[in-house]
């Protein structure tokens, strides 16, 4: 058992964040969340519970919604990550506008994760029912709004998205 405490050193990890190629020195078990926040200073991704329950740290990794507090950096090697900072183009994203318009944000801690969960939902299901929205966002907890304005915002964004596309 002499080497049961072998330590793997820091090394370079490469991945794409919001369209930009990044190389960071890190340990393979560092949480993606910490690397985003502390090394890349992308503090839009929040830490709530740190155990996958609250969804505040949700990001898209290779197009799928994940909680970045539960992703060891090694598993994000070469991945394509989208955080809330990558969403707005010249103006706010449709979902961001809808959250503003419907009052879907109060303290703001859950908002980035909510918006990414909603983005993922609308990508998979452009015409969600209210039940689909409730289920799609059920992994994201909000302690302020009571959820109704958030659900309305997603409904509004879905409507706008589909009418824009027509």
């Amino acid at each position: 058992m002499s080497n049961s405490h072998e330590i793997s050193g820091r090394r370079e990890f490469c991945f794409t964040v919001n369209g930009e190629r990044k190389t960071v020195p890190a340990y393979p078990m560092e949480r993606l969340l910490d690397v985003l926040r502390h090394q890349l200073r992308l503090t839009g991704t929040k830490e709530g519970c740190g155990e996958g329950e609250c969804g505040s740290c949700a990001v898209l990794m290779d197009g799928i919604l994940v909680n970045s507090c539960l992703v060891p950096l090694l598993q994000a090697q070469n991945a394509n990550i989208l955080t809330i900072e990558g969403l707005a183009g010249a103006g706010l994203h449709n979902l961001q506008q809808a959250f503003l318009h419907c009052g879907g944000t109060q303290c703001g801690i859950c908002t980035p994760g909510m918006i990414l969960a909603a983005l993922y939902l609308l990508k998979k299901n452009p015409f969600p029912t209210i039940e689909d929205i409730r289920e799609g966002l059920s992994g994201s907890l909000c302690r302020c709004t009571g959820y109704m304005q958030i659900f309305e915002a997603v409904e509004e964004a879905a409507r706008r998205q589909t009418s824009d596309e027509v």
Partner: protein
Amino acid sequence: MRSNPRDYQLVAPGTLHAVLSLLAEAPGKWLPIAGGTDLMVLYGAGKLAARNLVSIWSLPELRGIEVLPDQVRIGAGCTYAELREHPVIAREFPLLARAASWTGGTANQNRGTIGGNIVNASPAADSLPALLVYEAELILVSVRGERRVPYLGFHTGYKTTQLAGDELLRAVCLARQFSECLHHTRKVGARSAQAIAKVAIAALGGVAGGRVQEVRIALASVAPVPLRLFETERAVKGKSIDKCLLAAARRATVSEIRPIDDIRSTARYRSAVSSNLVEEFLRRLSAGAPI
């Protein structure tokens, strides 16, 4: 206290063969990590004892759902999202598809794997009663080769399994023979999303000529392992479902489960709910399930 990433080693050899060779070099030294939805929670809380981890996330040999004429072979690395969206799983193994849809929220379903649920071996795990009812067979693999074991008996005690230190779970096989049965499942928890079961049932059955022909019942969170209710099944098989049989089934259920008090519920509540869940299933069965 949070874990320090410096104290942990994590490697990703990239192929099944390379992972198995690494495991074989020092059986028990390396702990596989798939979607991390159990292990990273422990890690975040500073409670992950294993220091050497090997990533099996996205290993191609563990992915995919293969549909054969007589069985479905589910790769251990299949996520809940993949399971619930698969048309054959949804149609022929609805207990598993439903369990997948209950396992945490979307992000958890995108990362959590069926293999992780089985090897993590929680008595509260959602997909395991379904596997008991469908009498799943597991394929375990190591450099020594593959072996098939019935899922029933894989858990040898609270959070212990038959998996050897150099083995991985490779796949879960389900026989395609239940399309005629009534499939019934219900999870009783504090909230419908993101909540671990206080008690959950998965069951299937068929009635012919007024009598119970086929019946299989399993419960989560009522014993150190997910539990198949063989005694209860024996008590109802071949009988017609009436008040007397329901009472006998309730008694059999209560006598064969071993619930405990814990943070989520009490033994007393679990006993009452277990017998209610069994009765509810039998009532549905008698109300006219196809054979």
